[in-house]
């Protein structure tokens, strides 16, 4: 039996491994093993006040705390019957743009690009492609600046609260960001041009794409979930359609669509389901790079992320230009015993929260489903389909392909443990 092992996945967040076992030429099993320990956030939220949920859940992740804050606030506001209104809604959208920009820029330019340009890491790549790394860092900086200006700090922001924000940022503080955002927008559009000339593995899969629906807007926060195969549900019906289950080799739960199986959420899903909601300029830039829906090649997710960076930068510029720091920073709540559901689009995909609170506003039950958990089944299916090509490869080549495939998902294992070491075994 041949075994391909990646003992420790590099350039992903968290601790995991991959094992692929063969019997002869047949793939016997594929396991994405997440050995980062469970973190029990859902358990220790019990008994805490509903007001604490954005601050506690932000700690689940250092790169996408905004997503946790937005999904948790959406769920609590659903429970308490709060409509935060258009001003707070627009500020949340801007806040979320900042997170997409910084998260995608780090992954695209420093973590995933070395795979396509043939370098072991960004440091080796920087010696020969300084302009790529410099552009990536400038874009990331622009995203960080948005999060800091609205959230009070770059990591684990402190300004969001249920109902809105503790305070509205001054208009001048946001307008100061515009030159940096415009510079970053140009850099993202230029990056799409060289990405169009990269060599992408010839691989396509007919995923069921799942994403939030936010009406006429490219989605950040919404109250419906749709898929490429006809799913169209209210967020409150999530548990009826999505099932989590334990696998014996991993500390992360796997999600599946009931009676349908694996699905894909994240940039590729958003791009394919909501392409028409991108601006004409961003759609044209995607077309120049040779990218159009349906895009079924997960390796092209690097380009899709760059498209979303260009979109988020353009969206952020428009939101800042229209921003007036007027009105109350938050809508106060009247506590009632209730259940609330919230969903938003983290950089890596759909992030679902559900809370049950009592009449004192204390959390009695919590459920959090991060995007990496939702994509693990598709990640394994990709590896299963790619594995036959690995048999003839040397172990370093097979490891490289397996890791690149996993990195298509930009997995956040710390969020999901709630990943890589590759093992290939042949009997």
């Amino acid at each position, binding site marked *: 039996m041949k075994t391909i092992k990646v003992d420790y996945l590099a*350039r992903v*967040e968290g601790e995991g491994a991959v094992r692929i076992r063969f019997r002869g030429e047949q793939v016997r099993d594929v396991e994405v093993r997440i050995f980062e320990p469970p973190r029990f956030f859902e358990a220790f939220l019990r008994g805490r006040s509903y007001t604490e949920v954005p601050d506690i859940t932000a700690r689940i992740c250092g790169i996408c705390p905004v997503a946790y804050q937005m999904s948790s606030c959406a769920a609590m506001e659903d429970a308490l019957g709060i409509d935060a209104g258009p001003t707070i809604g627009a500020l949340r959208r801007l806040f979320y743009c900042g997170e997409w920009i910084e998260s995608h820029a780090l992954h695209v330019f420093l973590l995933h690009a070395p795979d396509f340009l043939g370098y072991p890491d960004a*440091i080796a790549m920087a*010696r020969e492609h300084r302009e790529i790394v410099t552009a990536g860092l400038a874009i990331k900086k622009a995203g960080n600046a948005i999060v800091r200006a609205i959230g009070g700090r770059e*990591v684990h922001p402190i300004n969001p609260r249920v109902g809105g924000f503790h305070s509205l940022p001054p208009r001048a503080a946001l307008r100061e960001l515009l030159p940096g955002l415009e510079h970053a927008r140009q850099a993202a559009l230029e990056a799409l041009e060289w990405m169009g000339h990269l060599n992408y593995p010839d691989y396509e899969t007919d995923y069921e794409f799942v994403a939030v629906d936010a009406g006429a807007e490219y989605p950040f926060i919404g109250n419906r979930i749709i898929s490429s195969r006809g799913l169209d549900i209210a967020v409150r019906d999530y548990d009826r359609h999505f099932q989590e289950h334990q696998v014996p080799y991993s500390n992360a739960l796997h999600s599946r669509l009931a009676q349908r199986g694996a699905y894909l959420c994240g940039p590729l899903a958003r791009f394919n389901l909501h392409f028409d909601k991108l601006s004409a300029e961003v759609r044209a830039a995607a077309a120049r790079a040779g990218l159009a829906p349906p895009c079924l090649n997960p390796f092209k997710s690097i380009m899709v992320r760059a498209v979303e960076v260009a979109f988020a930068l353009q969206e952020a510029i428009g939101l800042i230009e229209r921003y007036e720091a007027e009105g109350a920073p938050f809508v106060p709540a009247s506590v009632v015993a209730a259940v609330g559901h919230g969903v938003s689009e983290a950089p890596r995909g759909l992030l679902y929260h559900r809370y049950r609170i009592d009449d004192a506003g204390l959390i009695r039950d919590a459920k959090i489903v991060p995007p990496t958990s939702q994509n693990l089944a598709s990640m394994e299916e990709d590896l299963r389909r790619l594995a036959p090509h690995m048999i003839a490869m040397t172990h370093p080549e097979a490891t490289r392909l397996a890791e690149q495939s996993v990195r298509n998902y930009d997995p956040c294992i710390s969020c999901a443990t709630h990943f890589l070491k590759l093992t290939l075994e042949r009997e």
Partner: protein
Amino acid sequence: MAARIIGVGQQWAGDDGVGIAVIRKLREAAARCELIELNEPARLIDLLTDGADPVVLVDALLDDGPSGRVLLIDSHRRDARSKHLLSTHGLGVMDAIELARALHPARVAPRIFLVAITVQEAARRGVGLSPVVDAAVPRAAAQALMLVARG
């Protein structure tokens, strides 16, 4: 240009806050150099390439040995880079130094020193330093000042 000492860490993460504690100690002593508290190593690239020289970084070092030892680490040591290399949650200190050197070879501070205080994983939770790491703060501060003075 002036010398700079940068304390790296998280003050709310137990002994991981020792770099910040060293900077505060130096402030109390009115140290005559630029003092910076930093919790996002990606920002180091700018701070290592804007003309400051020498630059002394003070950070906690996860180690299996006794906590509270103060070590001077060669900033060119490749084996001191994190085993995670780069992750989506940011750069490690040694990664940031190496990236700064790769990106801006003509601008990067010629003299970069790393003063490390050994800590253990279990002591990275909670607020405040453990007694043995707290006791190392004056020694680490003196080591950083000596490097600046020598530079």
